[in-house]
């Protein structure tokens, strides 16, 4: 009897050790499966994105394809974007403000908007909105003087709103890179009025406070806002993107005078934000006169 107690204790000890090892083995297996599933999930997301990207490429320039099939070809998009983002300096000089009215409203007391140390231009609009459609042209022109867009696409405003089917860009997939400015676009709805992108609470607050909830709303670094288009969308009626883009360098064209003139006014505001950089854009007599009154 005196020897059986230690033997029983030893057997229990071995049983405990084996049970612990078995439990660890099961949990290690479960952990390995869990980690594998997580990695597989990320791999699946990347593969799905890659597959989507490949399918989207031929129609990447078209938005709302269900209602507007073949709005534009990739070649048309590329040509229109190239023309709108490279209007020569002498065209700006010749057109000046093009007879457009001052659009910016100062918002004294508002907090400065910055991203990564750069003044932020915040755009809130919607693809259905004809005034947004009109304003995107000069906004693209002006911002292109300070940086580079990628991912700009073509769309039309709503077919059932005023100034229907106004040809324009969409910022939905656009990326903007600049040494001087940050550009944050939010397209709230598509051209069929379906929700598209969501504004942050802070952006919505700015829209309500300084834009009374109306779009387009463009906050220029927290110093001034643009609350409508700088010209009537009627001016673009019946014109497609190619015709609008081609007219941008025709100094006598009313379309060029409206779009380039509005872009020049926006440029004046942007130069004030960037401290007159770059000098090639900002240090002109026209821009200097616009900085305080555009």
């Amino acid at each position: 009897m005196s020897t059986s107690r230690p033997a029983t204790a030893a057997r229990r000890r071995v049983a405990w050790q084996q049970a612990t090892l078995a439990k660890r083995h099961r949990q290690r297996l479960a952990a390995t499966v869990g980690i594998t599933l997580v990695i597989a999930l990320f791999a699946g997301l990347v593969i799905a994105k890659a597959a989507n990207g490949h399918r989207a490429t031929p129609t990447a320039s078209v938005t709302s394809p269900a209602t507007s099939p073949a709005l534009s070809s990739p070649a048309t998009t590329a040509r229109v974007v190239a023309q709108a983002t490279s209007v020569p300096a002498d065209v700006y000089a010749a057109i000046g403000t093009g007879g457009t009215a001052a659009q910016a409203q100062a918002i004294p007391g508002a907090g400065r908007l910055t991203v990564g140390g750069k003044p932020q231009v915040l755009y809130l609009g919607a693809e259905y909105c004809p005034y947004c459609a009109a304003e995107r042209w000069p906004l693209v022109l002006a911002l292109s003087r300070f940086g580079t867009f990628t991912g700009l696409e073509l769309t039309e405003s709503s077919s059932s709103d005023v100034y229907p089917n106004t040809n324009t860009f969409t910022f939905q997939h656009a990326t903007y890179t600049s040494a001087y400015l940050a550009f944050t676009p939010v397209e709230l709805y598509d051209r069929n009025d379906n929700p598209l992108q969501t504004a942050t609470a802070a952006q919505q607050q700015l829209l309500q406070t300084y834009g009374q909830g109306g779009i387009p709303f463009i906050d220029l670094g927290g110093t001034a806002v643009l609350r409508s288009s700088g010209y009537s969308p009627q001016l673009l009626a019946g014109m497609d993107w190619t015709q609008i883009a081609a007219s941008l360098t025709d100094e006598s064209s009313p379309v060029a005078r409206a779009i380039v003139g509005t872009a020049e006014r926006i440029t004046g505001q942007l130069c004030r934000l960037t401290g007159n950089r770059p000098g090639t854009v900002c240090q002109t007599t026209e821009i200097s006169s616009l900085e305080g009154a555009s």
Partner: protein
Amino acid sequence: MTTTATTVPRDRDLVAAPRWIAPAALTATAAGLAVSAYLTIAHYTQTVALACPATATINCEKVTSSPQSELLGIPVAVLGLVFFAAMAALAVPAAWRPGRPRLRAVRLGFAALGVCFVVRLVYAELFEIDAICLWCTVVHVLAVALFAITALGTAATAAVPEPA
């Protein structure tokens, strides 16, 4: 009798966590804290800009200024900071001793929550924002690595109650 000696480790191996777990977890949390702090500082200050290339695919600025960069008004960079700070507290060597089932469950659950959040953010980057933030990706990789370390560490320190 030698079979028992070769298949069953000594008792001290069953009551001590493998040596690699705590250092690995602490390294991952320290790195996560550092990158999250960098993202948080860049979010709140005007003088620190994220060192990040801007291409059609990679654009930190587009991601960090997107609507998805906030949750209930809180920047996700701050949430990352809180996550790694909490994981650092849960990953100190003393917290890896076998037993402590509640602590093990909380740590594993927190690490899994971090992975769920990362999945959501990666989905937003790929399918909603259309841009990848490199610094955010570093944080995502660290969060997943932390989950893997935690899961394996939890398994390695599992124990059944010792016989009396």
